[in-house]
């Protein structure tokens, strides 16, 4: 063996190893000292900081532009709305005056409001009616959510510094619910003037009246909020909140287990039981988000075919196997916590019936295109694949295209080339109008099924302007029954929210609209 002679080469003594270890350690230290970011973040005693990991980082920095729940949850601590959402013991949503002291209906399209006195923005200026007017005028210009939520408002009229009148375009019953959504939060008028029709472009403009002021945003690392000393309301118990985005599920859970963070959101269902066994506190509640397969009604105009699609799919199996129990089969087009919900009978899984109906309509063997996003909703890709399998079994040929979110949403909203598409919709106002009108009213902006039923239109139109609660309920009941039997969607399921936290945390307020309020969290001794 020719190589053997290299054994006669000088051997390394132990000293080399020790020297090497020392050199590495010193070098690492030097690298670290020279390259570490300047200005270390101030240190706050442990007990006063709450660390929470959501799956996503702040997506935008403008509260009126934000549409995603993780971002709005952070902003919910910085900004405040005229009303706020609370839940009764029976889990019914109620809307309490928040920045508003009192209000009265002058007539059915005119509401007079009086603001609370002594509310300060984080920049030290007082909250006035002018800020409300400016916020409500800017919102619909820049943001998708304010455009819907403030759409029914014709104008805001300032009476004096604390009094203002909101004029509606038409009688609109759920207006108070809309004024409780974080996207209708009040921003300072001067910021609305600097950025009248574009998103704010620097974090220095994140100024609200909420219990926390914005301290720092480090992209993909953390967002820090600190308590606002001159807050008008009850003094927060948490002095500082650190939002640490961790996209990877296993890492987020490991961080909770390792004690790096106090709360982990978006817990994957298979890990919830494991964490519970280790003594963590797990909260699992239904959200307000329904996941559905929209059916292009122009391409599939026959309601029998659309019903057949609903019969063809085993929703229970999707919930229990694909979602691992983190959801419930939808029994109405809107979730049960929403005002106006009517319990309906889900289309049972009946592949034989589905096949027969498709046969009668002459649809066996026809090809349909199903498009779906990957990574937007819990197990979205897997759900789409399950749907494909079930529909194939019922006798359709299903071509499936799965896309990354940005490409997907561009396709759904701007091209009409699809038969079926998977999307979710969260009824964030907890009022049926939000969950039905924009989706099922013909010509509504998010009616991407091109669904038309003039009776549904009539019911939805009169329900939104009806002030009598019982009459509204009955109108929504009829509308939902019609939508249910017309089946413009394949009604799938309501997603669950699963959150894990340290067992000693109390008063973590978890709302089904995927918002968590941490202001008054305390640690049990």
């Amino acid at each position, binding site marked *: 063996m020719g*190589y*053997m*002679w*290299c*054994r*006669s*080469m*000088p*051997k*390394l003594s132990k000293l*080399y190893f020790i020297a*090497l270890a020392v*050199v*590495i350690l010193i*070098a*690492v230290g030097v*690298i670290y000292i020279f*390259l*570490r*970011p300047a200005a270390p973040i101030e240190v706050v005693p442990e007990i006063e900081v709450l660390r929470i990991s959501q799956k996503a980082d*702040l*997506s935008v920095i403008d509260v009126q*532009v934000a*549409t995603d729940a993780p971002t709005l949850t952070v902003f919910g601590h910085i900004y405040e709305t005229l009303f706020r959402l609370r839940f009764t013991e029976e889990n019914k949503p109620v809307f309490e005056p928040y920045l508003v002291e009192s209000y009265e209906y002058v007539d059915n399209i005119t509401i007079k409001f009086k603001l609370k006195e002594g509310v300060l923005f984080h920049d030290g200026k007082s909250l006035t009616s002018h800020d409300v007017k400016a916020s409500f005028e800017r919102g619909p210009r820049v943001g*998708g*959510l304010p*455009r*819907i939520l403030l759409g029914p408002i014709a104008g805001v009229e300032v009476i004096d510094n604390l009094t203002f009148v909101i004029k509606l375009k038409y009688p609109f019953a759920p207006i108070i619910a809309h004024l409780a959504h974080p996207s209708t939060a009040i921003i300072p008028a001067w910021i609305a003037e600097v950025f009248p029709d*574009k998103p704010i*472009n*620097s974090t220095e403009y994140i100024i609200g009246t909420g219990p926390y002021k914005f301290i720092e945003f*480090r*992209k*993909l*690392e*953390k967002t820090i909020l600190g308590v606002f000393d001159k807050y008008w309301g009850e003094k927060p118990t948490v002095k500082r909140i650190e939002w*640490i*985005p*961790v*996209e*990877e599920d*296993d*890492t*987020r859970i*490991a*961080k909770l*287990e*390792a*004690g*790096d963070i106090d709360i982990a959101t978006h817990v994957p269902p298979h890990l919830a039981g494991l964490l519970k066994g280790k003594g963590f506190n797990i909260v699992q509640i239904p959200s307000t988000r329904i996941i559905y397969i929209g059916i292009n009604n122009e391409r599939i105009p026959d309601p029998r075919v659309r019903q057949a699609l609903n019969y063809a799919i085993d929703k229970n199996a999707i919930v229990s196997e694909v979602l691992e129990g983190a959801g419930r089969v939808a029994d109405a087009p809107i979730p049960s916590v929403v005002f106006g919900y009517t319990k309906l009978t889900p289309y049972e899984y009946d592949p034989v019936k589905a096949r027969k109906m498709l046969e009668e309509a002459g649809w066996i063997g026809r090809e349909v295109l199903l498009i779906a996003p990957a990574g937007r909703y819990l197990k979205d890709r897997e759900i789409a694949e399950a749907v494909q399998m079930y529909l194939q079994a019922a006798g359709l040929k299903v071509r499936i295209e799965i896309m*990354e*979110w*940005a*490409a997907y*949403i*561009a396709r759904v*909203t701007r091209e009409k080339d699809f038969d079926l598409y998977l*999307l979710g*919709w969260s009824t964030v106002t907890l009022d049926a109008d939000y969950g039905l009108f924009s989706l099922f009213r013909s010509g509504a902006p*998010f009616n991407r099924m091109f669904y038309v039923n003039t009776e549904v239109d009539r019911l939805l139109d009169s329900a939104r302007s009806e002030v009598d609660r019982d009459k509204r309920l009955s109108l929504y009941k009829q509308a939902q029954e019609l939508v249910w039997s017309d089946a413009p969607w394949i009604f799938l399921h309501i997603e669950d929210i699963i959150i894990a936290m340290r067992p000693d945390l109390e008063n973590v307020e978890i709302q089904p609209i995927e918002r968590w309020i941490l202001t008054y969290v305390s640690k049990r001794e």
Partner: protein
Amino acid sequence: MLKYLVKRFFITIPTLILILLLTFILARSLPGDPITVMYGELQPPPEVREALERELGLDKPIIIQFLLHIYRMMRGDWGRSIHTGIPTFELIKEAFISTLILTMTSILIASSLGLLLSYLSITHYNTRADKVIRVFSIATFSFPVFWWGFILILVFSVYLRLLPAGGKGGIEHLVLPSITLATVNLGMITRVSRAALLEVLMQDHVILAKAKGLDTKAIMLKHVIRNALITIITIIGLRFGVLLGGAVITETVFAYPGMGKVIIDSIFSRDYPILIGGVFVASLAIMVVNIIVDLVYALLDPRVKVGG
């Protein structure tokens, strides 16, 4: 020497512009844009979209946008993130420093240990020690990074509770990701150095030196290591350059905001200024590392003439 450096520097400029152009075109040919992402399920009506496109400058022809972007970059204005308003330069600088710390630490560990192991391996050629090192190095560079990262998190964060499970902060946050990256590179560097050392050892001039009865220490230092270093520096330089562009998987597992994560995030959110800035810095870093490696060649091997 200086002339060479200047020349190399000027060659990198067209390369960089070409890379930027390609990135620009590829990013734009992806379906969806920042506005689509910003509004999600609640897409704005066409007139609002047009106004925003004008505001963001997305309405101009792509080539004009590209030239404008290059012009602004040359003047030091890298733009701001479309979604968060953070100045691109600040964001990329921060991410690059994070990546640089991680890369330097892990390459330092990997290359010093790798050299040591490969040396041990040849001086104990074909003994048990050599075999253990060979198996070990094969094993480490075949570890899937995400799996190895999670194993480390499980052991050191979840069970022993010694180190944080990812995130960015103090030096303790650096330990696990550096070990993860170091392990994967360690195997490769050990294998390559061992092969390089062995090859030199078998060359005639080394055997001649040995036959002449030269001191083995002198042979090792002057002839073997010096010659083998060319190969070793190449592999280390290559790995270093690749890591500077970001180690996406490691950064994701450890929720570490380095170049890889920032660039990937900017692709998904179609945040063009960040994407362009990130690709620019990553490419520049790789080129600089290459120049440095070339200079080191010249130091080691008198036949390589810089500027020749």
